[in-house]
């Protein structure tokens, strides 16, 4: 395997292990809920809905 191929494979693996945008938003939403930050929950749930619509 060439160096380029190895780098590409590592990058793919790294990308796969990264949480998706949706998971990130859901995590932030849960944190905002626990903090009882209603404005943040509104904003994040809107973002999540937009993302879901786009998907």
């Amino acid at each position, binding site marked *: 395997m060439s160096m380029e191929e190895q780098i590409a494979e590592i990058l793919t693996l790294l990308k796969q292990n990264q949480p998706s945008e949706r998971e990130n938003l859901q995590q932030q*939403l849960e944190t905002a*809920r626990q903090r*009882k930050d*209603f*404005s943040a*929950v*509104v904003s994040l*749930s809107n973002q999540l809905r937009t993302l879901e619509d786009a998907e």
Partner: protein
Amino acid sequence: MRYSLYIGAASNDKRAAYAWLLVNHVGVIASDVYLTEGERRFDESYCSHIALQRALRKVAQSEGIVQLRVCMDETVAEAVGYELLDVGQAPLYPTLFRTTKRILQRFDKYELASFKKDEKEQTPQEVAVFDDAIEALEWAETLKGRIELIKCKWLGSTKIIR
């Protein structure tokens, strides 16, 4: 037309009061206060849903196409706001929740927001809502208030949440 509905609650050791204020670019369009009575007087979820539903029905009587911003204080937001946002919190009263959701569908567009009573930079509307609720609680302690409350209870007035 764009409207903002401010709704908030205050309570003492006897009951709670829910006040709301409807404003547009011209000024205050309508306002009202409800006092809670009976076993569920301190049930924030139940009382918030009822107060919000009554307020929304009044708002729905406004002329033209209504685009509404519902600004809730932390008590109402905590009690019903998260449920209405559909962010995974199961409604405590599913029937009340569905009714509130249905009434919100009457408007062309609606958005939810919240405000905090203890914030330094409150808008006059936010202060007015809380002040109206406090005033109603104080009124309920007066002789006239007590007599009126008994009358309202007997007559099944919509000024009372029970």
